[in-house]
């Protein structure tokens, strides 16, 4: 499954990335890399971006980008 499919409040482990490489470099620099646990906190109003908790900090990401993060629940 992808991060896009993970319900709000649930935790998953990043397995790999698909799609755009440009996006991945910043994600990895922010510490989001295979093996790391992420919790999806919430979805923004108007079905906007999602908020994640990773390495005990919070970060936002657009839903279409979340489709490129493959996770294990």
């Amino acid at each position: 499954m992808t991060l896009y499919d993970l319900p709000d409040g649930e935790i998953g482990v990043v397995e790999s990335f698909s799609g755009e490489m440009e996006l991945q470099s910043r994600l990895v620099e922010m510490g989001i890399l295979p093996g790391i646990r992420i919790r999806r906190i919430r979805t923004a109003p108007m079905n906007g971006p999602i908020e994640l908790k990773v390495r005990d900090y919070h970060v936002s990401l657009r839903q279409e980008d979340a489709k490129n993060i493959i996770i294990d629940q």
Partner: protein
Amino acid sequence: MTPRKVQPDKTWAALIGNPNSGKTAIFNLLTGLNQKVSNYPGVTVEKKIGKARSADGPSFDLLDLPGTYSLTPESIDERIVAEQVLSWIHGNKAPSVIVSVVDASNLSRNLYLTTQLADLGIPVVVALNMMDMVKDELEVDLDHLAAKLGVAAIIPMSATEKWGQAELLNAIKNSFNAEPTGDAPPFILNKNIEQILAPLETFLRNDLKYTHRLARAQSLRLVARKSTFDVYQNPSSNEGTFSEPLLESLQVLREEVVEKLAEKGEKHRIMEATLRYKWLDRVLSDAQITIDKKLEETNFSEKVDKILTHKWAGPVIFVALLTFIFQAIFSWATVPMDWIDNGVGWVGQQILRAVPTGMFRNLIVEGVVAGVGAILVFLPQIMILMFFMTVLEDFGYMARVAFMMDRFMTSIGLHGRSVLPLMSGYACAIPGIMSTRTIDSWKERLITILVLPLMSCSARLPVYALMIGTFIPAKKLLGAINLQGVILVCMYLLGTATAFVLAKVFSLFIKTQGRSSFIMELPPYRIPLWRSVFSQVLQRGKLFVVNAGKIIMAISIILWFLASFPEGDGKPTNENAILHSYAGKIGHTVEPIIKPLGFDWKLGVGLITSFAAREVLVSTMATIYNVQSDVDDIVQLKNAMRTDVDLKTGLPLYTPLVALALMVFFVYAAQCMATFAIVRNETNSWKWPLFMIVYMNILAYVGALLVFQGGRALGFS
């Protein structure tokens, strides 16, 4: 060949850290009020230098660099840091110590940058900030961790609770002459990658004299993103250190290595970050530190966000907050505005009493006092707006606004991060345009800049306030809502709505470079540090007074001369005299162009002078009427405008319809030249500022024409 050691030219330290790590709070704590703020050459990024000293050491300079997540640059702030760091490596005035500011409650991601800094060959001291947030949860052997990471010391502290700064200063002093860490790279590559990377690494070690450790890190960054190579090309940072052939070999090597890595299916873009985090996470877990201990926990900020970013309550709260801020700007400011108004009148009176009649007195009272006074009145409103913006930003709310609005903003061709710059635009377009730097996609950043001056800034407020106060009756609509307030809100809405529509239009025409994303940290909510809020608001106020003051004073003086000379035919001053003055002549020359909008020659002069700054319209009108008047007193501008009549027809010169047309003109017109100078800087070409000047002024002319002619056709006056 022996690798070159970085040689500091004098004793000084640089502060580097992630955004939201409390870097600026530490800078303020260490330097106190002893700061100097300037800009980096060519860009409008603040460069802050202060003086600090430990209890028993010499005083030294401390430089505060913009926040960054990594030395591989993405945003402009990050490019500044990368350029500075590169110039240090190549011997240009390197600091003796780098202070790496780290948020203790977010350790692993903050230390990522620290380990990049430790590669440079400059001693690194870690300021482990925000220890008040983790309390006793971080009981580890910091000296051992420091040795593992390759930094000189790790000093626990809290800038908010103000402790640990003495120890930090001491550690900085002790590291001034410290040997930097070893030359060996901390993490090992697999043999295949090492082989492919070898030519680039060897080049950096031999031709640029990098240590093995730095050559490894820098070659990984070079293959990760082209932006790292671009930093080598920038002439402003390296002052011509790199010759053309050297740059060319570096580029060729880089491309060859990237190609080979791609052939082998190696993910060169994420190689450095992956390797570094794997190594760092192992060091941390060896030190008994869990990187995501609180993942399951719902902390305070998450609880607050359940309300503030709630699906429907969130946007409602945001709109309510905006309404409150605008209410506050107009209701809280009235008292101090009256003080300033009375103060200016008093100063004028004193000069009239003290200085003998003559040209000099006229110049001071009619030109300078009347002109500057008309503008100074708006200082309270600007400071109130800045106060709210600063508090909300420091509290952490602005990131949430971007988060909530991203969906809507992307639908009109903008970005979630466009919200803050656009809101700053209500105060002043210049800081707004500068804050677009946080938008990492060029297209969305450009569109934000292009439409931002349509947000009604505080310089339009004097014009709106004068026109509304003079010509719109203070009637109550439906028994409760003030008509004047409604008209004012309409002007703000007109500008904002037009900005949104045009953003959508521009987004259809501007070609994209790269893709947009919304990877943005949502920092924990924090009570703002009041001293930092007040110092920022004061700084902004000072800037307004000094900058606006300079332009307005100069224009007021020039205008006074233009309006007073030539002095006419010797008769006592009357209306005809100003008609024949230089200002009158200029006004009459442009009158035919603006006649269809309902504007007369006086407004014509005002429109010309307002190209320097919008609010100058008010001081221009004040100066013209003061010169025109033969009474030794400061003329009440509102009365003068209301009673002014057309000499030919005897009808009132200015009507509510003219006022409305003038306000619409000001909503759209490109007038403040300082804005376009900043746009030139930020977009690196004259193309975009010129485009803005053209489209905004066409909009202004057509808008005012439609209002005046349309209004007349409908029978209004």
